[in-house]
């Protein structure tokens, strides 16, 4: 029997949310509910919630320098529409995120706060060097993604705080996200990879950033593989070296979805696919479709 939620408060403004979350130590932020209410059903005690799903504001704001502010409490559907083709890695991630019934409610803030190493939007945000903007009563702070992710189900979110937004430097032209999972919808990633880079006129990749999910206690950057690729020509030899370097960047475990050894092979293969070294073996993501239909 799922225990009832005995207190629910609806925040109409961000200040409301600060105040409501500071008054009771038990109250937790609720936005889309697609994760918190599932955890509750699995036995997590959620006696009191503060609803953030009705907060106003643009899902995506573009600054003059090209940087983006993403509202952490907006639905993924609204974020995808607001991105309007910018930030392809996050668009890809949203396209393969659960299913439309979930994307219409789920939020970036919730996907971050749950601290899952397999969270689908997190690799794109980590690769993009996003900054998490947190707030609570009388305080605001900004934390880089790499500092925010502490471990499995652990993030740097303190009592009374909630995630208001994510700040991203101007996203590069080249980027994307792929996931390997048992099904094309409603599936938890076995391995996921987000990437971004710039291509110089000589076909060399620069500003290479790779982030992988479900292969370590948190989503991780593939720093050794990045170092191999940085400034190097796009040759099969370089791709093979980068794929070989992935193994030292990750620490996968055996769990009910896949074995560690499979994850290692999958991780290397996924990077080779992304580098164009081998043809993709799984269906391409339907992100183009999402972009055109979720307006």
């Amino acid at each position, binding site marked *: 029997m799922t225990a009832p939620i005995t207190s*629910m408060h609806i925040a109409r403004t961000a200040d409301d949310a600060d105040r409501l979350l500071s008054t009771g130590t038990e109250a937790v932020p609720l936005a889309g509910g697609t994760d918190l*209410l599932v955890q509750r059903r699995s036995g997590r005690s959620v006696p009191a919630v503060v609803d953030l799903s009705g907060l106003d504001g643009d899902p995506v704001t573009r600054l003059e320098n090209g940087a983006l502010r993403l509202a952490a409490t907006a639905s993924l559907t609204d974020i995808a529409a607001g991105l309007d083709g910018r930030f392809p890695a996050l668009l890809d991630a949203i396209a393969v995120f659960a299913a*439309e019934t979930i994307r219409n409610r789920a939020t970036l803030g919730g996907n971050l706060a749950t601290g899952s190493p397999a969270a689908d939007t997190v690799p794109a945000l980590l690769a993009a060097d996003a900054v998490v903007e947190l707030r609570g009563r009388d305080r605001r702070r900004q934390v880089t993604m790499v500092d925010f992710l502490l471990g499995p189900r652990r993030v740097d979110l303190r009592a009374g705080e909630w995630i208001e937004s994510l700040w991203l430097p101007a996203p590069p032209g080249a980027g994307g996200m792929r996931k390997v999972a048992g099904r094309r919808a409603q599936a938890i990633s076995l391995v996921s990879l987000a990437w971004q880079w710039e291509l110089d006129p000589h076909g060399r990749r620069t500003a290479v950033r790779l982030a992988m999910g479900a292969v370590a206690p948190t989503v991780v950057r593939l720093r050794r593989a990045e170092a191999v690729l940085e400034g190097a020509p796009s040759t099969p030899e370089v791709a093979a070296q980068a794929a070989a370097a992935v193994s030292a960047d990750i620490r996968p475990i055996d769990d009910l979805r896949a074995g560690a050894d499979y994850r290692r092979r999958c991780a290397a293969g996924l990077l080779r696919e992304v580098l164009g070294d081998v043809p993709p073996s799984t269906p391409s993501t339907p992100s183009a479709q999402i972009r055109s239909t979720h307006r």
Partner: protein
Amino acid sequence: MRVNGRPVPFDPRDPQLAATRLLDVLRDRLGLTGSKEGCGVGECGACAVLIDGRSACSCLVLTGQVAGNEITTVEGLADRGHGDLQAAFVRHHAVQCGYCIPGVLTSCAALLERNATPQRDDVTTALGGNLCRCTGYQRFTDAVCDVAAARRGAAPADDGDGDGDGPVGAVGSANSDGQRAGGS
């Protein structure tokens, strides 16, 4: 909060109701038992309803969160202009046990409202959160493409599934539907 076009006869911000799942309020307070509870964790979509025209799992929404929104359940789809979609499901024999159908229809209605010319892949994507273990998705897709074509006021020359059998839903005519689906 309005449900199927009518204001609800209670205050959805009432503390107890606000913290109750939308699905329970629809079924137990309003007697709208079309929406089903399958998994209770957002995997199956049997509880899907429209919230301001978008498909969502009512088992993962607290009533207070949608106190100012327009909810449409399967019972309200015809009044919203989707009676033809429901009729097409019947024509295409797209229903067997029926448990998933309220959610499936809801997701298909949401698709048709934002995309007047859905391709078969669009239907597949729109139904990613709706599990059906009987009929399969072929007939849902046939029904949706049929309705989309009819709403555009033209019988399509091709139903887009690449089998060259022309428009689906030519009910009573000898199309290949029965063959393809094994005549179930």
